């Protein structure tokens, strides 16, 4: 399916099972929905609401030839690149975080030609997901006009049929799979996000398959009490995974703050040793821990509690 094939995307949505069924599965089973060569769109942004629990299981299946897309890509992109899972990264920015500079692993993989870096502006990428979410082949915008970014990524320009002004057209993005982490979901896949919504609601609508992990699975009646807070409707969702601390060491707004020591440890290691360091962290964070509980145990309960308290303080 070409990225902007809105007819095929609509057919796929029509053919989904739209019933209110129980979609709860474990992270391992959910990860089986990702196939080699898929375009996998990742929810959250940088180190906020990264769906770490499910991404870890996707990696453990040793996929090949994936395209990963995300609004701002954090080190999960490094892990996928060094694991040999990725051909192309589609994003507006990729790094670890401001204090740690550009990742040497990213530089190595892109500069040696192992991975293609498909760069869009933040809004252009957001509008690509939005066009997908709307079921149309493109959206017009004014952003990036006159820049090299416009044509490098495959956007086009046209003269507006109403005003004659020049417009940038960005093609819709219909990911094969979206992987999202949210605060609350019911067993059917209705989902609520607190704090930053990022681009998740558009990803859920644009993707062919949606894997959702949630800090908490609540009963459908409890979810209905705050229907206004539901931003992802169940019929877009294919799998629901219960994953408390499912973004850790990245943050989940209001629940736990990012563990910047853990992120910084990775950042410093990569600044010193590049790909070799990413490989070590793959071993430590992905290959060795058999389950997500084993993974969280690496950080320990005290660190989880500390970040929970810091989040509460910031909301106070």
């Amino acid at each position: 399916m070409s990225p902007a094939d809105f007819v095929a995307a609509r057919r796929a949505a029509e053919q989904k099972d739209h019933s209110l069924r129980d979609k709860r599965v474990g992270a391992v089973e959910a990860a089986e929905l990702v196939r080699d060569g898929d375009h996998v769109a990742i929810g959250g942004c940088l180190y906020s609401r990264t769906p770490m629990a499910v991404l870890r299981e996707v990696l453990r299946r040793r996929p090949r030839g994936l395209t990963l897309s995300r609004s701002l890509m954090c080190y999960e992109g490094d892990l996928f690149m060094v694991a040999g899972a990725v051909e192309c990264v589609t994003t507006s920015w990729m790094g670890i975080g401001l204090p740690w500079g550009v990742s040497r692993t990213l530089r190595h993989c892109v500069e040696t030609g192992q991975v293609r870096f498909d760069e869009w502006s933040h809004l252009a990428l957001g509008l690509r997901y939005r066009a997908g979410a709307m079921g149309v082949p493109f959206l017009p915008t004014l952003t990036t006009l006159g820049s090299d970014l416009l044509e490098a990524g495959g956007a086009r320009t046209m003269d507006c049929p109403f005003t004659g002004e020049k417009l940038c057209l960005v093609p819709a993005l219909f990911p094969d799979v979206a992987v999202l982490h949210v605060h609350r979901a019911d067993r059917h896949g209705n989902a609520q996000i607190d704090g930053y919504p990022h681009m998740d609601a558009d990803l859920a609508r644009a993707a062919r398959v949606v894997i959702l992990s949630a800090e908490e699975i609540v009963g459908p009646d409890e979810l209905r009490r705050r229907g206004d807070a539901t931003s992802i409707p169940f019929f877009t969702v294919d799998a629901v995974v219960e994953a408390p601390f499912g973004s850790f060491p990245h943050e989940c707004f209001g629940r736990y703050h990012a563990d910047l020591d853990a992120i910084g440890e990775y950042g410093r290691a990569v600044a010193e040793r590049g790909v070799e360091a990413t490989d070590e962290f793959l071993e430590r964070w992905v290959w060795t821990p058999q389950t997500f509980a084993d993974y969280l145990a690496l950080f320990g309960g005290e660190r989880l509690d500390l970040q929970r308290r810091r989040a509460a303080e910031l909301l106070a």
Partner: protein
Amino acid sequence: MTGPASPWTRDELLAVSASRLLRDGKVVFAGVGTPLVASILARSTHAPELTIVVEGGVVGPDVKAGQLPISTNEMAAARHAMMLTGITDTFLLAQRGFFDYGFLGLAQVDPYGNINSSLLGPRERPKVRLPGSGGASDIASLCGEVFIVTVHERRRFVERLDFVTSPGHLGPGLARREAGLVFGGPSRVITDLAELDFHPETRRMRVRALQPGVSLALVRERTGFELEASRPGALAPPTEAELSALRALR
């Protein structure tokens, strides 16, 4: 200029100079780092009703001293915000025309204020891959007025870019307008050596005023292209009040 004996750091000088461009009652789209620090400083000095917008989707945060965020998408950047919305919708507010100011940093800038933050060397196989645009190209395209803030180095101020990530004036005259950007554009460049602006017709960068202790010759030496400068003024040094407000944030 900042030397060992200087009572302020280079980053402090940039933040103070940038903050002075921000007027009260306006809306500024600020990234983390110097732009956010400059915006918070402006709010605590001369522009208490300046509204800060952060790319992650935050309108009007009240960032706490000692808790400066390092990402535009983390809880610390959203403290006491008036509104939290999606990233795409935040940029669409810029496209709609509500953001008076935007800030940009850079790896390279050319005489027309076009910016590269994508890559160095050939496009297909870059010699250096940089993190990328993020929201920079959107800010450059869509905000009312754009301020470029950077350390002044010859390798950054180049006649020709390897890649145009963020559109400035694009070229002489109406180049920006002809590309379809019917508004906005860079108006000032703030560096640790000078404040620069753009000639209204040639659209090339020119020196407007010098930072304390800096000579025009030094600015020229650290710039990789020809700079116009008729009679540059002098920027006032950071005041005690500005420096203490700034240091209270850290």
